[in-house]
């Protein structure tokens, strides 16, 4: 079934042929089925892809995010509850973000975060049995770019998950090409949320549109599109 790479696979298809004689099978959270039988079902549907030397995965267009430990995401603060903030990350439940998980936050020195703010944070705990937990600091207590963003403007854009993965991959030239012509600041969350800020409103909207249309474009198309867009922005 190695020839099924690049084709659509459905749940229930048997993929045991892909394993060699002495390979072990690791499956990620997204693809394990409920009975835990490692050799048969896949829960997701779409193209089977292969990456050297030994990873097969199922690539699909998905909009809803499933929390993964270590992912950096953009969340929106919805409420305060006791010692934690409740943050919406686009998953099936709200995640918690403790007050103390910000840089230089102590019990007396509360962080300046309000309901409705956007935060760039990382998942500390994310599995199917527990409520997801977020933090805005890294292991050594530094913020490392995490924390409240968007205080001074910018726009939040929601895109499908696979677009985020595409845009963050090293082969994709989108951000580089945009950076040649425009000054912009961007924060990409793995939950499909992208925060963009430029000098003017029009540039921000243009960059947001550029990102969302690049979903089905090849690198060449992206370059063309970016140069056209930059020209039209310069030419008012």
């Amino acid at each position, binding site marked *: 079934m190695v020839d099924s790479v690049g084709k659509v696979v459905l749940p229930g298809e048997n993929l045991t042929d892909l394993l060699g004689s002495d390979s072990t099978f690791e499956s990620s959270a997204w693809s394990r089925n409920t009975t835990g039988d490692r050799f048969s079902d896949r829960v997701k549907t779409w193209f089977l892809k292969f990456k050297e030397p030994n990873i097969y995965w199922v690539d699909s267009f998905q909009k809803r995010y499933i929390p993964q430990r270590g992912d950096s995401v953009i969340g929106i603060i919805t409420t305060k509850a006791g010692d934690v903030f409740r943050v919406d990350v686009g998953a099936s439940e709200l995640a918690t973000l403790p007050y103390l998980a910000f840089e230089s936050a102590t019990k007396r020195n509360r962080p300046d975060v*309000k309901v*409705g703010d956007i935060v760039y944070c990382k998942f500390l705990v994310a599995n199917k049995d527990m409520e997801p937990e977020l933090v805005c600091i890294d292991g050594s207590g530094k913020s490392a770019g995490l924390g409240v963003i968007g205080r001074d403007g910018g726009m*939040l854009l929601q895109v499908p998950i696979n677009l985020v993965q595409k845009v963050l991959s090293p082969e994709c030239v989108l951000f*580089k090409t945009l950076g040649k012509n425009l000054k912009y600041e961007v924060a990409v969350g793995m939950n499909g949320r992208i925060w963009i800020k430029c000098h003017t409103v*029009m540039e921000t*909207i243009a960059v947001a*549109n550029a990102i969302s249309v690049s979903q089905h474009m090849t690198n060449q198309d992206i370059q063309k599109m970016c140069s056209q*867009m930059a020209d039209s922005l310069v030419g*008012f």
Partner: protein
Amino acid sequence: MRDTPLSACERNFIIRALGDRKRLDGRQPYDYRKVKITFGADRGCCKVNLGQTQVLAQVSCEITSPRAVRPSDGVLFINVELSPMASPAFEVGRMSDLGVEINRLLERCLRESRCLDTESLCIISGEKVWQIRVDVNVMNHDGNIIDCSSIAAIAALAHFRRPDVTVDGSEVIVHPSDEKDPIPLSVHHMPICVTFSFYEQGKYLLVDPTDKEEKVMDGKMVIGMNKHREICTLQVSGEMLLMKDQVLRCSNIAVVKVTEITELIQRALENDRQARLNGKKFGFAESEPTESILTNQQEPEEIQATETQMDEDSEEEKGMNGDLKTERKSKVKILDKGVGMIGEGGASTWGVEDNEMTEELQKEAKVTQPDHKEVTHTTDCQSAVSTVWIVGSSIVYWAETRAKVRKMQNLLYDPKEVRVYWDGVRGMKWDALMINLQRDLAVYDFPEPYVLIIHLGSNDVASWNTDELISRMKADIQKVREMFPLTQLVFSEILARRVWRGLSLECGEAKRQRINQEVGQYVTEIGGVVVPHENILHQNVTLYIKDGVHMNDFGNDILLDDIMNCLSSILAESTNDTEDSMETEDEVILSSIDLDICYTLPLSEVNKDIEGNYPQQKEINNDDDFEIEFKTSE
């Protein structure tokens, strides 16, 4: 489930964008999203897409006893369901406030406006009447469900056919559709709801808000109107107060929108009727794209991009490989016998250049720079095409649009002889002239012009002292002269306006005339030509659109005529010259790339615009596998 909350950042951004009169999807404040109406195979089934918002309406009928108060009237029943697949905020079961509001609005709009003739639904008075039931299902919520539902409901009612009945004494015979053709309902008029959303206490107004815009709005107003300018229903909701003139303004906007949408519905109904008549397939299956797996369907995004020449980029496709090589094809210019030049001389702005020949040519170009002026005719070496640039403000932009509509973008000239390049930028002021010209040359790669028509200055009349403006204009025209020493300069006089921003009509008119006179005189002194527009006077109301500044179709036609007359007189003089210079085409040492250009493509291809619609050249296209069509905007 709950809906994604709206963050403070997004809210602030939307308000700020409104201050700049910009919307997130690039629409103008009074623009509707794309409306798509499809009918199903069943009669009375209609699906309407308003951008991403999708609503399905189904009409059905049943015989019941009439209401006691109206024994000879049929019954119209409307039911709106907000299904959970439309939005995570909608829940099954009990209708939310929004659901009740939409239901009530549609009832008022359709039932109380008497758009449907209920008396014709009577079968036996007092005993049996038709009950027409409209079920509206919201399938996707991306803002403005009300408008979408009203369009779907009225289109479905117009599409529906009820069974024919015959009354025999007290017996009622309902004929099935194979016995007797079902008859349509009698729809007197088509009321459509138009939603306006208000921001900042009525300061900003948007038509057809999307989901995000709805979340930010202060309040909204819904006007239900038909194309006969009759208001069927009016509702204001939210936390704001409206002034009387705002309500009147909104109703005027609604008139325009309703007319457009009614036309769209009629057209869709007609298409469906034709399809059924001619035995073609109809229904939803036909309107969905087949033979492709789609989880995400996206309409082509409209990104504002000015027209650029695409054919040159396509040559580079073979060389591109993910690195950022943005080379553009350069044209080889013959300077002298045996000497060719690529680029304008000066420092090389190319990245990695592995073509030794072109470097040599560059050196030669630097050496032979003083000989440049010996060229008698600045035309492209590969064909004797005269290029005309028309540069200017929004007047030029709209003239180009009009020319495109009339399919005369090249001003009725044969593209092999004369090529017209338009560069009209709305709001352009005189200061931007030099920048735009340089950009056209360097970035857009317009070939050097034989004739350069400048129509600029009307946006500066109000903001500058007349003497200062005149001297600046003269100085810049001198600079243009130096930049293009061999180009025929044409100054198109500033058009009269009915409304000058910041000036009275008399003052603006006087300034304009003085500027035209002095600058025109200067231009003729240095060898240019002036195009007067004697027929465009501010007293001619019929030439202007409502804003009093821009031309309508008639005005634009006069403008185009003036330009063409001027051009024809200039070009007629030149044809005497061209015959001489054509014979002096030289041999040039060309690199391998250039050879490819010269020998594999037919000569006329080089300057061809992919987006141009020149029917006589279309058949040449088949051979080219360099040119890849790339549609960004529709």
